């Protein structure tokens, strides 16, 4: 080849190097300026938070530290005094929920109770429960609507509350690339909000629209914060992660009932331990006509619907 060698023009070389260097410096400075909002974002997050390991890998001491930090942060960011527990599953328990569709009248009290109990963002009015108004005689959700208004119940309609079904074959768990979500021994599917990377793959995978993403930092006025919290449950979530219904594990693992059940005025909701032979719930599952949603998908819900 007869190409000229590239570097012999020495006098040009240093001048060009200077010009290029100048441009590179300029570009780098412009880049730093462009991404400066990141500094603001970084100042909200502590190094301890960044380094924190997965929930299942924390030693008891580390867990205690993490929880103390989270409580302090809630005080600082929300002005609320809270206690965050680390409620673990009770051996020999498998929680199951059932709803009597003959009784549910679509009043939506459960939706509201969930919103308050779980410290959801006030401005987006988030809740883990959605109620569909459905025409009588069909289980086809395509015919339903979640945005109904007016007095309930309406003639010719029935109401189908949907929330996380705590699937036994949960697609949301399978797809998570970082194991930020998993199923616990008592059947509750949980999320480590401090491990989730916010890819929202689980949201795409869940067939029941049960997952919510924190598109912004949740806003809850200090006096409305529910102070009884748990690490894997209703503590105020960080921005940029997903969350979901946990069957109120901060209540149910302490022997109480879920908030949505307590709020329901019609008594349509039944909650209990399916391993307990004498439970009301067990009797219903054995004696009623029971349905599960989207059975054909093989998700094996721990959530049942029945008619009288």
């Amino acid at each position: 080849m007869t190409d000229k060698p590239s570097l012999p023009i020495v006098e040009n070389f240093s001048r060009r190097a200077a010009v290029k260097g100048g441009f590179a410096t300029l570009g780098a400075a412009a880049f730093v300026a462009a991404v400066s909002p990141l500094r603001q974002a970084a100042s909200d997050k502590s190094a301890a938070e960044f380094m924190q390991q997965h929930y299942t890998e924390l030693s008891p001491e580390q867990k205690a530290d993490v929880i103390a930090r989270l409580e302090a942060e809630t005080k600082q960011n929300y002005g609320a005094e809270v206690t965050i527990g680390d409620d673990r599953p009770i051996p020999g328990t498998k929680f199951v929920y059932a709803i009597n569709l003959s009784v549910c009248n679509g009043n939506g009290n459960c939706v509201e109770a969930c919103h308050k109990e779980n410290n959801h963002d006030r401005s987006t009015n988030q809740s883990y429960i959605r109620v569909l108004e459905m025409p009588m005689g069909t289980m086809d959700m395509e015919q339903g609507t979640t945005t109904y208004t007016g007095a309930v119940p309406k003639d010719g309609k029935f109401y189908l509350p949907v929330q996380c079904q705590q699937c036994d074959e949960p697609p949301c768990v399978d797809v998570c690339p970082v194991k930020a979500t998993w199923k616990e021994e008592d059947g509750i599917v949980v999320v480590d909000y401090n491990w989730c990377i916010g890819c929202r793959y689980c949201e795409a995978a869940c067939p029941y629209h049960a997952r919510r993403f924190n598109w912004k930092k949740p806003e809850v006025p200090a006096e409305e914060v529910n102070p009884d919290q748990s690490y894997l449950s209703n503590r105020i979530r960080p921005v940029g992660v997903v969350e979901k219904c946990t069957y109120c594990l901060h209540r149910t693992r302490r022997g109480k009932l879920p908030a949505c059940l307590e709020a329901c005025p019609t008594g349509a909701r039944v909650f209990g331990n399916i391993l307990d032979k004498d439970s009301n719930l067990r009797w219903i599952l054995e004696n009623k006509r029971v349905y599960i949603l989207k059975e054909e998908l093989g998700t094996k819900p721990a959530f049942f619907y029945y008619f009288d």
Partner: protein
Amino acid sequence: MSSITASADEKSHITSYPKFIGRSLWLATEGSFAFYAWMTMLTALFLVGANAWANQVAGGMIGTNMTDQVSWGLYIANFTFMVGLAAGGVMMVIPAYLYHDRKMHDVVIIGELLAIAAIVMCLMFVVADLGRPDRFWHMMPIIGKFNFPISMLTWDVIVLNGYLILNLHICGYLLYMRFLGRQPNPTWYIPFVMLSIVWAISIHTVTAFLYCGLGGRPFWNTALLAPRFLASAFVSGPAFIIVAMVLIKRLTGIGGLDQPIETLTKIIRVTILVNLLMVASELFTEFYTGGAHVSAAKYLFFGLHGKTALVPWTWTAIGLNVTAALLFLWPGLLRFRWRPLLVAACCMAFVGAWIEKGMGLIIPGFIPSTLHEIVEYVPSQLEWKVTVGIWAFGLMVFTIAIKTALPTLKQPAKH
């Protein structure tokens, strides 16, 4: 003696490889006024995108128009398309090495450089889509917690990064040998080139599996998704390379590109028809069968319950794809004086595939939602800025890569 041949004193690769990279970068930033103007424009666009992204991280993803119903939007749409572009780059390799097309040997590196730029863009789009980019390290094997082999996303991380490394190796090796003034040793790159063919198919198949493995999303839950992805990738990749080669020829006067352009045109002629055939058979199954599965397709093509945000996108894509297909079928397209028409046809096929793989595939998967709510999605300005920024960065990478390879391209291979 050629422009980037090393001085004779180099002994060890440990010192001479960095020297090669430095020299390449130096040369890649040499150029005409038009080149500097182009790079300046790309840098400016990139900075706009970087700033928009920084704001997104600071303020939360509320700045995007995504919702809990439509939880993936423009970013994942572009990601999907870029995977296709990366896989499509391999269409240079197949004729060159499987069919021993000598002319392709000289320019095969263009396809590999495109793959590198496209994968870099893929990774950037994924990061842009993360709610918590500060936790990216959770995704790394060993130090993070890697859900392998169950999560398809972890597979995707592996195959994409593997493909990136593979192509960096092939390109790096070939160019480095030129720099040293040596003949490349086939044992050091031919096996990798063959592997890259399989690998290219795997990256797009795995990406399709991300979607078609979700039982709750009937629009994606079709076995045809992976083959459809590949067919459209083998349109968009070659289309991009044809336009790039026409430009390279114009701007640098490098010869020997006409025959590769012809080969690629012939490839598109087939793949574009295969793609249309698959789209048609999918539509037939959807609409003739009817039932619950059809609502997303109905929404996409005709709108549902008065909501029609995607309809214009879809019909634009169909119009572009069909027109491009007709042009490619016309033998005269290869004639030299019809070059502008060939470029136009490539652009149409490219944009058509972009819409089809993006707004036409990802978004309707979420509409109606799993509870049959119809929540529409139109990307926000912030999302467009980030997207343009990433495209500008990708073009920057591609431009620099091509400039690095120019001395090699100028010289016909001797094997």
